């Protein structure tokens, strides 16, 4: 094994969510050298921000913990957080990749003691809770954050607030002089595990997301249910902090729609079915969930879960794509208008809270794909012309966590084949 890990035998994995971590680990555990780059300060991606998984209703922290332990034990993976890929040149087996490393303003001396966070008073919108609350401008992103190292928000650097953080640090970890760095590495294969982002619900004009406070996205609802979320796990609606006992779930919010995302995002039906159980968990028989759907796509074995939810007396189903939402000005309740296509009944139903099951689209913020990468009609990654770059997880297709892990393992195997071939040609 050579001293430098950045050779044509290295696999570069872009994105440190569940897919990126999996792809990196699978290759590393096969003895390959891997560089895992992540644009945010922590690993875990969107999966770390879920409250529970379907269908087993277990918590993502569990799987995350296992993966983090695998990572800590493995010497073959080098993790670079706050890093984006700015350029890729070369071809299969021999790529030159330019990485841009943003300053964290905290160096590796950090012990995550939290003194800087206590010293600072400035607050920034909390990206881990989709901006539903705020956190201190010197912060540890979340309890499970890896690396366990604080981050100083750039907005307080060069202000007295930044100096306060620096003064409070007992180990000299706060370094306000950090600058953005550019690093160039070589890699034999690249796995793009750049993930997904929720479709911008404000674009679905008739649903009033952004205009009505009690219309939220499914991801925001995950945070409401999570004990680490802005409400400490209580399902309180954003409009007035009232308990949301009567919740509407609108399926295909942006998906399967030529005006928005033309693909089926595949996970949203199961996500909503899962979330009806959060309502039940919080309020028992008093809770009420209504799912408005075109057709429920609980793929393969998930049908069992669907049948379980169908039997739940607190959950009802309305076969209808909601036409529009209005707001009851007196109590802030959203009113759903549409036609139930089973019998063609016109309805105007009031709920405490509306959850839009928003579709998945490929993440593009901070992602600069090389021209060589082939995309499908919804911009998911199909592969590359030279067959040296691969899409993994939700960057390749709208997938749930389970299938994202399978996809990442497959991508990892493809990448291993590329660098193995490389190794044999180098030896010869």
């Amino acid at each position: 094994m050579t001293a430098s890990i950045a050779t044509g035998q290295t696999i570069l994995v872009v994105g440190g969510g569940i897919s990126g971590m999996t792809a990196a680990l699978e290759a590393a555990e096969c003895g390959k050298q891997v560089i895992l780059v992540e644009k945010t300060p922590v690993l875990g991606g969107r999966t770390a921000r879920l409250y529970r998984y379907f269908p087993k209703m277990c918590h993502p922290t569990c799987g995350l913990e296992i993966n983090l332990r695998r990572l800590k034990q493995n010497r073959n993976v080098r993790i670079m957080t706050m890093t984006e890929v700015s350029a890729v040149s070369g071809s299969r087996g021999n790529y030159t990749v330019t990485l841009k490393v943003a300053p964290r303003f905290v160096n590796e001396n950090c012990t995550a003691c939290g003194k800087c966070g206590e010293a600072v008073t400035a607050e920034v919108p909390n990206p881990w809770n989709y901006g539903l609350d705020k956190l201190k401008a010197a912060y540890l992103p979340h309890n499970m954050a890896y690396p366990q190292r604080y981050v100083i928000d750039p907005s307080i650097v060069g202000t007295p607030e930044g100096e306060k953080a620096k003064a409070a640090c007992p180990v000299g970890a706060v370094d306000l002089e950090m600058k953005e760095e550019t690093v160039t590495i070589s890699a034999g294969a690249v796995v793009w595990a750049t993930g997904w982002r929720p479709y911008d619900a404000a674009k679905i004009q008739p649903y009033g997301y952004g205009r009505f406070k009690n219309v939220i996205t499914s991801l925001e609802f995950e945070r409401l249910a999570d004990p680490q979320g802005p409400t400490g796990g209580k399902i309180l609606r954003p409009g007035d902090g009232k308990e949301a006992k009567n919740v509407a779930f609108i399926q295909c919010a942006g998906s399967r729609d030529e005006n928005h995302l033309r693909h089926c995002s595949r996970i949203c039906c199961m996500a909503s079915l899962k979330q009806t159980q959060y309502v039940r968990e919080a309020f028992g028989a008093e809770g009420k969930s209504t799912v408005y759907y075109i057709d429920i796509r609980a793929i393969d074995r998930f049908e069992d879960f669907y049948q379980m939810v169908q039997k739940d007396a607190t959950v009802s189903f309305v076969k209808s794509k909601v036409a529009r939402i209005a707001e009851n000005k007196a109590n802030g309740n959203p009113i759903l208008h549409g036609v139930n296509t089973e019998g063609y009944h016109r309805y105007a139903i009031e709920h405490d809270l509306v959850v839009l099951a928003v579709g998945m689209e490929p993440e593009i913020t901070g992602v600069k794909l090389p021209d060589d990468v082939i995309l499908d009609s919804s911009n998911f990654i199909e592969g590359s012309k030279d067959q040296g770059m691969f899409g993994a997880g939700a960057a390749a297709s709208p997938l749930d966590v389970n299938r994202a892990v399978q996809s990442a393992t497959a991508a990892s195997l493809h990448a291993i084949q590329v660098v193995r071939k490389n190794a044999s040609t180098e030896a010869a």
Partner: protein
Amino acid sequence: MTTANQNAVERYRNNFLKEVEANVEEGDMVKMCMQCGVCAGSCPLGPHWEHSPQKIFMMIRAGKREEVLSSDSMWMCTSCYNCIVRCPRQLPITHIMHGLANYAHRLGLAPKGQPTREFGTLFWNNLVKKGRVNELTLTIGHYFKDGIAAGIKTGLAMQAVGLGMVKAKRLNPMEIFGGHAVKDLKGFHAMVAKAQEIEAKKKGFTA
């Protein structure tokens, strides 16, 4: 049963969807409907008609020929285009509605006494006569469509508006004697006849 209707029944037998695809404007898009119901919920006239668009589309697929063609629903469309804007499959719903109305009218199956249909017929007949709309005879024709008594009643109610328009020179009472025509009325009639012939041929109607 009109000859055109008989021919259509003979030709398509039990496949009403095929008939619609072949004869109705944008009829080939009907099969794209996925029954989400967003058009029905978005229609401002929704509560006032019997069959919502997605129901009409399902009825077409189910072969309910008589029920669809004699429905008054497509005659209620005001062309607001709300359904087209919101349809997730981008079906040209407004156009299909008008296409269906037109087809039903040609086959003689459209509902009798449907106000939109009656006014449409009145308007067309008025227009072709002289090549321009004679507002006076059109209005009078419209007022008297439900009988003489109703006509006189509406006429008296609208008296002030009519006199005001005459004073403002927006209405010429002399138009009642037939009114003026477009230049080259003969040419205009020939043009309309040719257009009708082309359309009838295209849609399989004998002129």
